[in-house]
């Protein structure tokens, strides 16, 4: 039994305490935008926000999450995909297969919250999620676009008006 606050709603779930938060979110709560990629906190596909910090939910035991911890998943990030990061991702057609992109977006949102005008080095340090399709170049451009770092992403944006 665990009580969780996910996307502003209280959820009571019947589950063993050692179950990873990822699988509780996916299976008991039923929010499948948060993905399983590795189970060992390497790939970041399972990234969610806990009290504003980006965390890899595959490696957090649900028993270690407090009822007062505020969990936000990709589904709770915004209404109508209106977050500036989501808008930038759409404007630059960042995703290919899309499977890792929930995690990438959650990592980017957390980065911009702490560092509103990130440098490339800031992005390199914060965005360690794996993308096998290879969308990194567009992720970088989209983070700059969401940050309003106009000139950095201007080339690409102009090309696709």
């Amino acid at each position, binding site marked *: 039994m665990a009580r969780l606050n996910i996307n502003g709603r209280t959820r009571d779930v019947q589950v063993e305490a050692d179950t*990873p938060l990822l699988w509780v979110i996916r*299976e008991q709560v039923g929010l499948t935008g948060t993905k*399983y990629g590795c189970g060992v906190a390497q790939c970041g596909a399972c990234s969610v926000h806990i009290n504003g910090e980006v965390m890899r939910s595959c490696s957090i035991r649900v028993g270690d999450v407090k009822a007062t911890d505020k969990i936000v998943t990709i589904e709770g990030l915004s209404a109508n995909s209106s977050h500036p990061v989501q808008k930038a991702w*759409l404007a630059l*057609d960042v995703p290919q297969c899309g499977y890792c992109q929930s995690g990438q977006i959650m990592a980017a949102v957390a980065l911009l919250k702490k560092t509103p005008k990130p440098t490339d080095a800031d992005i390199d340090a914060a*965005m360690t999620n794996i993308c096998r399709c290879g969308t990194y170049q567009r992720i970088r451009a989209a983070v700059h676009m969401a940050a309003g770092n106009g000139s950095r992403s201007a080339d690409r944006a102009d090309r696709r008006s």
Partner: protein
Amino acid sequence: MTKMISGKKVSRRTFVVGSVAASGGLALGFNAPFGFDEAVAQSGGAEVNAWVVIRPNDTVVIRIARSEMGQGTLTGLAQLVVEELECDWKKVTPERITPGMNLARKRVWGDMSTGGSRGIRTSEDYVRRAGAAARIMLLQAAAEQWKVPVGELTVLNGVITHAASRRTTSYGKVAAAAAKLTAPDPKSIKLKDPKSWTIAGKPLKRLDTADKLNGSKVYAIDVKLPGMLCAAVKDCPVYGGKLKSYDESKISGRPGVKKVVRVKDTAVAVVADTWWRAKSALDALPIEWDEGAGATASSATIAAHLKEGLTADGNNGEIVKGDAKAAIAGAAKKIEAVYSTPFLAHACMEPMNATVRISADKAEVWVPSQNFEASLASLSEASGVPLDKCEAHRVDLGGGFGRRGGTQDYVQQAAVIGKEFPGVPIKMIWSREEDFAHDFYRPISQCAMSAGLDEQGNLVGLHVRSSGQSINAWLNPSAIRGGKDARQLQGWWEEPGDAQLGYDVPNKLIEYVMRNTHVPVGPWRGVNTNQNGYYMEAFIEECARASGKDSLEFRRAMMKNFPKHLAVLNAAAEKGDWGKPLPQGVHRGIAQFMGYGSYSAATAEVSVSPDGKVKVHRMVLALNCGHVVSPDQIAAQVEGSVVYGLSAAFYGECPVEKGRMTSLNFDTYQVMRIAEMPKVETVLVPTFDFWGGVGEPTICVVTPAVMNAIHAATGKPVRSLPLKHVKLV
């Protein structure tokens, strides 16, 4: 509802032969490029033909047969149809057809398999003709309604105009009438000149991005069905081994566990109410394996096996011109090297999975598949349910890269488990560890090369001998004829058009020596052009340096008879600033190669730190894929090929110990992350006289361009991958 023809008998063999289509031929039983049917589609509109359905509100449904795994084919195919159809792009919605629909309608949508970079290039003709045929019928319907000659009508964005009478109508209004007309002969249709395209060839937005941004996209791993149970599976870690026994009592009473299932001879699965409970119980299940003969193999024994092939007698495929051995023996200067590349895993971000629901008279599967017809066939075979009572539901894939093609091993496993639970949906997911342990790996190989230069530094003799595992031997033995397996020589072929070597060498001997192992192998983005492009282009670089000539000029001198190869090399050199100064410590490399009907070349700018750390700063890739349908998505594929290629070159390897893989997750199977991403510039130089592939062609020049830049930086060639094991300084 789409009109379904039931009870059609299609032998599984015929079906699979058609759908695997490694040869690239059109599928059996697929006669007309498109068919016409008056049936009203599921979407409630009028089906003008199999590819085009138009609703009264002018929404245009474009049917898509090929799989979408991120490569953008869904959008590109729609662009091609709409270019000829001339409807409003903003009102287009794609509809993915299922293999059950295709089968029921005599494969009206043709081949659904999506591999070999064929999604656009082998569909383009019939999808464009389908769009054009629909336009002709829609205009005819309007002409008949207005009783005017069809030649007096014009159409723009789905609005039909008769200027003389100042009348207009829309596709949505005439679609039902158009659907009743006789279709024009596809051969009579004159397609547009691609240079006049306004939809195709333009950098339009993808049609499938929005739901990837908010968690709402449903991949197969996300499927939820009423009463669904979940399965975790473990196959014998040693290839060729078998399941001996397991002790079910040790996990009885664990929460949620329903059943332990033996899966064929080699695997065991635990079924529970959730996947995590199934997986935890499987981890706790004592299992004994009969590991078989493969258990004695290791990376060292496999390397020795390959090495023996380098000097053994005979070969399993050769390309001969003149007398290479004599030319090298008599040359003014000789160069010799042995190269090697390891097994590699695909590591799609969405692990292998399949959800099945099987009863006595119906079987369904939800699966990420590059070949939904093969999924259907595997489901039918493993479930025993006839093909026409099976359906494979369409979902997009969380990556493919060649892993999810004809083999469909996971569908077979899921079907075996699902049969134990009649009518109950079973979602089987592989753990990441299982995914790395049971891939069809990129084949391992070693390659011995020798070359001779004359007094002027010209290449007069080239001997290449590649010893390694054969994909055909594992997956498609019938393609090996008389012991010869030409596929392993991909990129070195003499025949033009697909993967031709772009150099004239007066004396050459290029050989493949088959040395198979017990490890399963298969196609991996770019397939054999990866190893062959690296071997050839890194060795040509060694020859160029030995000749004292510029790397670009040395290549150009051998390319006079290969104008397309040369033009792409020149484009990469020009846009890559070949010969221009670089910041101190930064060095440039270049490479060109051909695969999947397209010509590729690249330059790379690289620095090597005093402690041997490599940084790739910038890459410029030039591509002639004949026609450009979605330029921005082609750029995305090029960027992706850099990441996939460099991940392998820097880190990728699947070591074997005691017959099994030891690198089972991303902590040991490292891949590239954003911090290592170079600036990538894509240069498209289409010549509009052929149709080439896009997803795979450029990967084969990524590694050699970077390795040649490292060679420039350190003065030493990199002859063995991954780079992480190579001491550079």
